[in-house]
């Protein structure tokens, strides 16, 4: 179904997505939105792996499995992060980074 679409197009999308995620992580001041930026980053990585697998090395499944595993790990990561975030909310009544910044350099 993807005949005629060059590999580079996928890579452009994923790269853009990756850096949008980085941008989001740097500018967002809310813990949950920071987490969402990270999900964007991981998603970009997934696209990379899958596309490489499909276009360049279809005889084995490394890219595919790597994506699967990243998804699983991301789920665990998100679960733990959200558990802590909720815990913070109970303590601070807020989850904005500026409020969380109790410690200073």
């Amino acid at each position: 179904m993807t005949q005629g679409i060059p590999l580079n197009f996928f890579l452009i999308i994923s790269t853009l997505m990756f850096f949008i995620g980085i941008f989001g992580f740097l500018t967002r001041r809310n813990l949950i939105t920071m987490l969402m930026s990270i999900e964007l980053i991981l998603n970009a990585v997934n696209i990379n792996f899958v596309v490489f697998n499909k276009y360049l090395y279809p005889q084995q499944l490394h890219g595919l499995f790597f994506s699967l595993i990243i998804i699983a790990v991301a789920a665990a990561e998100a679960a733990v992060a959200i558990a802590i975030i909720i815990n913070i909310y109970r303590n601070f009544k807020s989850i904005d980074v500026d409020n969380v910044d109790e410690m200073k350099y």
Partner: protein
Amino acid sequence: MVFNDFLTMRHELILVCMILLVLIIDLCVSKANKTVMIPVAISLFLIHTIIGFLPAQSGVLFGGAYHSEPLTVLMKNILNIGVVIVLLQSAAWLQKEENREKISEFFMIMWATLTGMYFMISSGDFLMLYLGLELATIPMATLAAYVHHQTKSAEAGVKFILSSALSSGILLFGLSMIYGTCGSMYFDTIQTAYGNAPLQVLAFLFFFSGMAFKISLVPFHLWTADVYEGAPVNVTSYFSVISKGASAFILIIVLYTVFHSIAYLWKDVLYIISIITMVVGNLFALRQQNLKRFLAFSSIAQAGFLLLGLLGANEVGMTATIYFVLVYIFSNLGAFGVVSAIHAKTGKENISDYNGLYKTNPLLSLLMMLSMFSLAGIPPVAGFFGKFFLFTSAASAGYYWLVFIAVLNATISLYYYLMVVKAMFINKNDNPIPYFKSDAYTRVGLICAALGIFVIGFWSQIYEIITSLAFGVIK
């Protein structure tokens, strides 16, 4: 799979079994006497450590995804020894009222992260490396957030998990490019296929940035101080000692084998990063009042020194780095042991609280002084030997100016280490921390650290053993 394969993987398998064992025993113990879990868990881990030292054959399993060699076994054993001391030093804190309910969880989570580190060390492909890394970091965040009525602790947890997630993202982006250019995730394939195309260089940089987060090299260190200060003392010592040691080990393996072909590149990168890391770590450490923050920045500076060993890019460098990690484990655990013993009794953790400590608690102060000297690299304690060999390996590659900068930085670091010594020995204090007697676990933990600080340096046999193993790995 045959029985022998299980033996090859015994470190990981036994530890996972022990996690489950603790889980089961915990179910049988009534809520009132959860503290029983402490001796149970510590003795279990002690057994595990001893088993780790039994000879085992090396081998490659899972088609190359897992490999075990004398060197990896040694690395795991070094980590094990460190963990034993950490556990001993944590006992007093775990016995506190507010932590009693989740003692077993503490052990289980810590061991899970340790399993992750084992897998990192033994990984033969990037998939396992990544998984080990995540296994070593995700549960760790919950350890940082362990004390949840303290806001600092929760903050440490969330900062840790967010920054580590970001770093894994960056690392993975690099890995995806490596996959795209090499077509495999196995180290052995990549090693032969890796060239110096710009994309591969870029991929390496992404990968290295991700790793740099984990070892908290400047400029990827921003999370370190907050996490170290916020997390409970014992968790901090686990972070700064064990997890950093493991990351250093894996960096050795990856740089020396997988990225061997672009050594010229990563040497340049390490050269710059190590200077920045030493300088920034030192400059920030100078200004700290909180001992945990202080040790955090000092450990950043130590990570900068560590890179010098890697720069050697030869057997000497490998040996020196592993040896330095071993020394660093003991010296830092000595320091953290004292901090944690005092914190458990009095809740104090500022440098100024330590004023006049020598008058009331001479032994603790002495151990602290030795650890500080060891971290600063002063003879006759082990730190001197660690630093000497580390710098020797950098010099062996001809980096004399770098060595000079590093030794000057070591001198600067001596300044702030001496400030701690000064607080304990010279400063006067009207109400110093009163004399107290630590419990048996803590004392054993402290004695172990002190012995290590003294023995490792003089006993050249340890160095020779590491050398003999390191020589086997370089291809």
